[in-house]
C-alpha cells in the first residue's frame, strides 16, 4: 500500500499567538514554527502501517513557503521515504490545498492519504473532507483507530456521541484525531539520514491549480476577555453562591 501524508507548517502549539496591532492577522515574525500536531499523528500512523508491513512507501507533501522544507525534513526524519514541497508564499485555503493534493494524488496514485483533522492555525477542519470529495474517495474523519487490510480501511472515528466505525473502500482519505497515536521523536541518526532523502519542489502553477483565496480576511482581533471574579473561602460559601444562582436547592 502506498501512502501520501500531508503536513502543514504552523505556529508551534506551545506558543501563544499574538494578534497584530493593525488587525491584519496573527504575528508570526520570529515565532517558533512546527509541524501541525495533527499532521504529526498522521505521519506517525503512516510509519506504523509501514512497520506492520501494510504500507510500502510513504510520500510526505507540504504546501507552503520554502521553509516548509523543514517540516518535510521532520516527516522524513520520522520515517517518510520522500517528500514533495508545493512552494508558494500565498496562504492557501483548504479548498486550494485539497485541489493541489488531488493533483498530486493523480500523479502518485496512493492507496490512502492521511492528514490531520485540522490545522491549529486556521482551525478549519476541512481539507481532508474536501480532498475526498474532489477525488470521489471515501473519507474516514477524526480517526482514533485505523486498520488497513485486503484493500479496505476500517476507521474508528471520534464523534460527539461516542466512537463510530466505518469500513472504507480503497483508495481512501483518513484524517487523524488526537488519540490515534503518540508521535515519535526523530532520532539524531534519522535526522541526518533525512537530509539525503529525496525532496522535490513544485509550484501550484506546475500543477495547474488556482489558489486564489475565496475568503477575504477583513480583520483579526483578540477575543473579548473575561474578567476574573471573586474567590470564596469555603465550600459553604460556594454552596450559598450556587444556591443564589438557582442551580442548587
Amino acid at each position, binding site marked *: 500500500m502506498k501512502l501520501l501524508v500531508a503536513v502543514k507548517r504552523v505556529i508551534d502549539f506551545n506558543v*501563544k499567538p499574538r494578534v497584530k496591532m493593525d488587525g491584519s492577522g496573527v504575528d508570526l515574525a520570529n515565532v517558533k514554527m512546527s509541524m501541525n500536531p495533527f499532521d504529526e499523528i498522521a505521519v506517525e500512523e503512516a510509519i506504523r502501517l509501514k512497520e506492520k508491513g501494510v504500507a510500502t512507501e510513504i510520500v510526505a507533501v507540504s504546501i507552503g513557503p520554502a521553509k516548509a522544507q523543514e517540516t518535510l525534513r521532520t516527516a522524513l526524519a520520522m520515517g517518510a521515504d520522500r517528500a514533495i514541497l508545493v512552494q508558494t508564499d500565498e496562504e492557501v*485555503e*483548504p*479548498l486550494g490545498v*485539497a485541489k493541489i493534493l488531488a493533483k498530486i494524488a493523480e500523479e502518485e496514485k496512493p492507496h490512502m492519504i492521511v492528514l490531520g483533522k485540522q490545522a*491549529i*492555525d486556521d*482551525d*478549519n*477542519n*476541512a481539507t*481532508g*473532507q*474536501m*480532498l*475526498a*470529495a474532489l477525488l470521489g474517495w471515501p*473519507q474516514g*474523519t*477524526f480517526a*482514533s483507530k485505523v486498520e488497513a487490510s485486503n484493500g479496505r480501511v476500517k476507521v474508528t*472515528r*471520534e464523534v*460527539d*456521541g*461516542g*466512537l*463510530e*466505525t*466505518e*469500513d*472504507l*473502500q480503497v483508495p481512501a482519505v483518513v484524517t487523524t*484525531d*488526537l*488519540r490515534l497515536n503518540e508521535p515519535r521523536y526523530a532520532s539524531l541518526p534519522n535526522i541526518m539520514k533525512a537530509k539525503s532523502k529525496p525532496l522535490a519542489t513544485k509550484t501550484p502553477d506546475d500543477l495547474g491549480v488556482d489558489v486564489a*483565496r*475565496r*475568503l*477575504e480576511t*477583513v480583520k*483579526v*482581533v*483578540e*477575543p473579548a476577555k*473575561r474578567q*476574573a*471574579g*471573586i*474567590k*470564596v473561602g*469555603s*465550600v*459553604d460559601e*460556594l454552596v450559598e453562591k*450556587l444556591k443564589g*444562582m438557582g*442551580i*442548587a*436547592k
Partner: protein
Amino acid sequence: MSALVLIEHDGKTVKDASLATVTAAAKLGEVHALVAGSGVDSIAAETAKVAGVAKVLVADAAHLDHELAEELAPVIAKLMDGHDAFVAPATTFGKNIAPRVAALLDVMQVSDILSIEGADTFTRPIYAGNAIATVKSNDAKKVITVRTTAFEKAAREGGSASVEKMDAGQPAGLSTFVGLEASESERPELTSAKVIVSGGRAFGSSDDFHKLLDPLADKLGAAVGASRAAVDAGYAPNDYQVGQTGKIVAPEVYIAIGISGAIQHLAGMKDSKTIVAINKDEEAPIFQVADIGLVGDLFKIVPELTEKL
C-alpha cells in the same frame, strides 16, 4: 435568499445543535431544513414545528441510514441548485459533511462561525480561539458551519412548515457503517446541559474521577465533562472532552475541578454564563476566567460540596 439547513438527529429526536443552526440560517434567508436518513418521518414532523423553518425537505432512503458523508454530500450538493447558502452545525456530524459539500460546489467553507455580520461576512475563531477573524466570502454560494453555542436555539414549537419528499439519489457505495459504540448516560448531553461539572488530570485516576464527580453531577442534574489531559490519561472517554478540539460548550454554570485552564480547554468553555473553578493551585490560569474560585484540595472539597448541596 434561501438557506438550506442540515438537521442533525439521532433517529429519535432533532438535536439542539440543529435549533441553533436554524437561528443562524434565518439571518441569511428563508430556512429550508433537510432531514435525511432512513425512516425519518417523525423527525421531519418534529422539524416542521421548529419556529423559523419555512420548508422541510426529506431525503429518506436505506442508503442514507447513518448519514454517511459519501452518501449525503451529493444529495445536498444537488439541492444547492435552488439555495444560496448551506448551513450545518459545527458538530462532528456537520464538520464531517459540510466540507465535502463545499468541495463538490467549488466553494470555500466558512467554518465554525460565531456571528453573521452581513450576507457574506462572518466572524470565526482561529488559533484555538486566541483570535477572532472577520471574513468575507467571495463565493456565489455559501457553505457555513455554525458554532452552536454562539446562537440562540430556535423554539421547538411554533412553526408549521410544509414537508416535501425529495429525490434521495443513488447509493455511492464507497463506505459502510460498521457500528456506533455509543456512550450510554442517564445524564444530560454536554452540548445542551444547563450545568456541567468537568474534571482534569488532578483527579489522578479513572476511579477517583468517577467516584467524586458522578455523585456531584447527579446532585446538580449536570453533565460531566473533562479536560484533554484527563481524557488522554484515560480517566474519561473521548466524548467527555471539552475544548477547542473537543466539544464547545456554553452552559449556565460550568464547574471546572482540578483543571488548570490550558488555552485549548478555555476555548471550549469560556462562553459559559458562570464559571466556577476549584483548584489547589491559586495561580492556575482557570482562575483568570472564573467568576467564582475556590482554592483547595478537590479530594476534600468535592465530597463536602456534594454532601452540602
